[in-house]
């Protein structure tokens, strides 16, 4: 029962204008493809891995999706503004923003340099702030929008996390709640999704003993898949989910 069932009926996000940060590989790619399968138009950003980004673009185009790809750093406010300006010019607005780009430096605190701390907080917190700010202008004009922040704190209940990473994700969850209150009255919903450990991505880089530990502790007895995390995210940003905002969903198999 690891693959999520196909959603019923017509596409969930027909022609929705979606932007995913960090979309070149792993969960970011899975999110892009799940949005495309739901009928959306998909734009994504990436920083360095051009070959991976082109692979994601090709996969989107194979699905018949109108894809737009932007290279740049999420910590760069000008980049965020230019990406959103391009989407407004091309598509007339942005309906969905998924703040997915993140970095993870597996360092104990005594070995964490200030540069590591700053980089982690910059990418994982300032990035979502810059992209949310850029997207809010067209969303406020439209009186509608969905922002989904990918946090990853679910794991912290059973596993040690680098302190800078944990602090950044905690901040992102607090930001989710605060922004939800600020913009809810304008028809914009803001939620967070905290995936547990997955077979691919960060989970694949962990030692097998840690993965086995997770399997033992989690209710469903297995790691997740990027596809099931992405399918869940699609529902969260879809027009079917209308009375949830400021929430953080621990999609972790039951820790």
């Amino acid at each position, binding site marked *: *029962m*690891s*693959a*999520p*069932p*196909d*959603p*019923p*009926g017509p596409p969930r996000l027909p022609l929705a204008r979606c932007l995913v940060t960090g979309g070149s590989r792993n969960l970011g790619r899975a999110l892009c493809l799940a949005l495309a399968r739901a009928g959306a138009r998909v734009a994504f950003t990436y920083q360095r891995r051009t070959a991976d980004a082109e692979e994601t673009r090709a996969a989107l185009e194979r699905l018949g999706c109108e894809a737009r790809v932007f290279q740049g750093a999420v910590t760069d406010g000008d980049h965020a503004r230019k990406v959103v300006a391009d989407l407004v010019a091309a598509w007339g607005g942005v309906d969905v923003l998924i703040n997915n780009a993140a970095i993870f430096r597996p360092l104990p605190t005594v070995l964490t340099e200030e540069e590591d701390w700053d980089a982690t907080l910059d990418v994982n917190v300032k990035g979502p702030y810059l992209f949310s700010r850029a997207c809010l202008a067209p969303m406020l004009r439209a009186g509608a929008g969905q922002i989904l922040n990918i946090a990853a704190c679910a794991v912290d209940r059973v596993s040690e996390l680098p302190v800078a990473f944990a602090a950044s994700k905690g901040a992102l969850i607090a930001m989710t709640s605060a922004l*939800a*209150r600020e913009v*809810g*009255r304008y028809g914009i*919903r*803001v939620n967070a999704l905290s995936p*547990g450990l997955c077979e691919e991505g960060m989970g694949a880089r962990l030692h097998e003993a840690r993965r086995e530990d997770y399997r033992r502790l*989690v*209710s*469903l*007895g297995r790691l*997740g*898949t990027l596809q*099931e*995390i992405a*399918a*869940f995210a699609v*529902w969260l940003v879809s027009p*079917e*989910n*209308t*009375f*949830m*905002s*400021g*929430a953080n*969903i*621990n*999609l*972790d*198999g*039951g*820790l």
Partner: protein
Amino acid sequence: MSDSRHALLFGGTGHVGQAVLRLLVARGVRVTFTYRRKAAAARELAAELGPRAMPAAIDLRAPAAIRALLGDLLAEPEPPDLFIDCATLGRPIALPEVSDDLYDEVQSVNVRAAFVACQTLLPAFAARGGGDVVLLTYLDGARPTPMPAHFALSQTAIIGLGQALAKEYGGRGVRVNLVQVGPLQDGVARELPIPLLADFERLSAIGRVGTADEVARAIAFLALENSYLTGQVFPVQGGL
């Protein structure tokens, strides 16, 4: 996928229950739904929704009656693989006015009925490879809201029940989740004082009360499409 599923729905004639029933039937699910007093409403729903909506008169205060119904359902060729509990009793009554009988009645419908059902259903789900349980819990279990004590404790008890069952049966393919509901336009919220609803609208992120359809869509998603969420409180409550 949904065509092969059979749901047992407690409280199918209630405000949220009706919305869940309609949505599940529209998605091809066969639904056995319970009712107690609203026989006419149950008949009308069955007539409107056709053979996939199967009413069952039952008093959820009586464990023996629940077990008898489950015995019948589990003997069917296609027994339920999905349990949704939308049956909730609750009125805003001040602490000194809560009689022992009222206390017992609220706990028996809001908590014990789900416990008794899960006691029989979950081993049966597990024996056939898995299933899903979605329980409703109202925002009264959460700290920021004023709440009648006897009702609030039933809502936090159901959360404890759901989380414990998720652990006990997760390894056998059964997912158990809770949908936390905020004030809605009708149903249990009809009893709430107007100033409380005004506070909710002012303080919540979405700034309005919800509808039964909004809750039903979340329940249907968790019941039919979710594969990795379990033991969680899914907050469909406007962002308080």
